[in-house]
């Protein structure tokens, strides 16, 4: 009996232990390695960084670490500009997503109940098709001789083709398009639960629709607004595919910088330093997001 309860407790202990250990080894440890390598010097040999970790030589190992890569990040204003422009592009995209996503989520929440499930499925469906393919689709649309310009010129609205591809505008279009489900779904989840009688009461008491929107709907939708905005802003700051395929060479973004340090310049320590920089920018939004999400899942009835 003793033995049986021991194996039972062991089996019960494995449930949290296995995923915990997996994430510890493959998520937490890799981060510490990035931090370590961001403090090392590049070397020509494979792997292209030094020092290679040796257990016997801890003193020399730590002695070799320095802040050289981070000094380089501050000296070359390329990284500073890339950081600023990433945050700016992500912030503007998030604002645009709210502007585009709110009316859609609001319309879904007001649709007859039997259609709502279908509308939610229709919002999610594009998310299941490849991200890369959906961005690729926009290249054909936004090109100077692309489908949008063909349509606009055919309709006689413009005489000269618009230059949209390889500009920041194309990046905004791409981010809004690709991230729309992440904004609409949290908004819909809060708007759907909203009590309409509050709006009716406000209107009865003489409030204008515009005013009751700002004083009732928006505050009640705030959890959805915050969750959706973070869910879009955080990955947008580090976005690589969208600025690379739609933004042209002019669009500076930090995720793209990391990619080129790694793949083109093969400077792994500098790429790691850029990763740490990106993480420092995002640590506060990520912590807030985790708290919002954990609370949202746990208070659910």
């Amino acid at each position, binding site marked *: 009996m003793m033995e049986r309860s021991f194996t039972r407790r062991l089996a019960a202990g494995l449930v949290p232990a296995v995923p915990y250990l997996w994430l510890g080894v493959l998520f937490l440890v890799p981060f510490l390695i990035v931090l370590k390598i961001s403090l090392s010097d590049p070397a020509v040999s494979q792997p292209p960084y030094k020092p290679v970790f040796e257990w016997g030589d801890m003193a020399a190992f730590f002695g070799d670490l320095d802040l050289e890569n981070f000094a380089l990040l501050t000296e070359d204003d390329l990284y500073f500009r890339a950081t600023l422009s990433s945050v700016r592009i992500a912030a503007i995209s998030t604002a645009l997503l709210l502007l585009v996503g709110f009316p859609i989520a609001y319309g879904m929440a007001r649709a007859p109940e039997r259609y709502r499930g279908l509308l939610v499925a229709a919002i999610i469906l594009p998310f299941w098709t490849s991200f890369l393919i959906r961005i690729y689709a926009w290249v054909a649309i936004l090109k100077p001789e692309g489908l949008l310009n063909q349509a606009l010129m055919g309709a006689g609205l413009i005489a000269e083709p618009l230059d949209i591809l390889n500009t920041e505008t194309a990046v905004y279009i791409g981010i809004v398009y690709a991230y729309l489900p992440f904004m609409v779904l949290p908004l819909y989840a809060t708007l759907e639960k909203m009590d309409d009688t509050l709006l009716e009461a406000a209107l009865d008491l003489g409030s204008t629709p515009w005013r009751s929107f700002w004083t009732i709907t928006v505050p009640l939708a705030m959890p959805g607004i915050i969750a959706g905005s973070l869910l879009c802003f955080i*990955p947008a700051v580090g976005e690589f*595919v969208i600025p690379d395929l739609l933004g042209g060479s002019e669009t500076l973004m930090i995720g793209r910088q990391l990619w080129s340090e790694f793949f083109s310049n093969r400077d792994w320590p500098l790429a790691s330093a850029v990763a740490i920089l990106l993480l420092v920018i995002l640590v506060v939004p990520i912590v807030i997001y*985790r708290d919002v999400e954990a609370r949202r899942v746990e208070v659910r009835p």
Partner: protein
Amino acid sequence: MNRRLSVFNVTSLVFGFAFLYLPILLLVIYSFNASRLVTVWGGFSTQWYGALFRNQALMEAAWVTLRIALLSATLATVLGTLAALALTRYGRFPGRTLFTGMVYAPMVMPEVITGLSLLLFFVAVDLDRGFWTITLAHTTLTMCFVTVVVQSRLMTFDRSLEEAAMDLGAPPLRTFFSVTLPLIAPSIVAGFLLAFTLSMDDLVIASFNAGPGATTLPIRIYSAVRLGLSPEVNAASTILIGIVTLGVISATLLSKRSVLRSRRNAH
């Protein structure tokens, strides 16, 4: 409560869904274009589909991608379900805050960071880059999504059924397999499908962790797209979109049927 759709509501829904679906629709239409120029219509043709199946490198990459997705989604489903059970059934175990952090962070973390950090880890432990490193990387990312999907089902779950089984003398493991598992099965299937799709779709993490001999379909498509538009990519995309659409529709029908069945059983 009487909710009515205003003209504004309908307009925003119509424009919203047009915005979401028009680019995909155009991509599919132009995959049947006879012209090599992707944006100029030259008549109907299925020639690019033929070219696609004769493209050895692309077909090989598709096979590698499929195997990685199946394996990593299976692993992620097991790990994610365990993690969801840990988060819902174990109360405040030591290190829970760190654990929730590790579950939620990878979902929003920019992929370039996840990709780079895993690669540096694999180099540090001297693991050759290729099939297995991509599989491990995808498992780590996608298990977090499975956790959230299964966790939200476990939260809304009627504990009294489990308690009844235990009161009748069923050991915990048996209770899990005969009561809990069948009830959360739809969410586990949904988690698996999500993990599978994310793995099939991933470019950034796979690029960092790919090695010689293990190139995935998104990596191939990306390098083709960088060289310019290609009708073959349109054809490949159309096939992928077709598979996904069929998969989502059949999953929806399946889950509807299981909901109906469980409702019938309840009455």
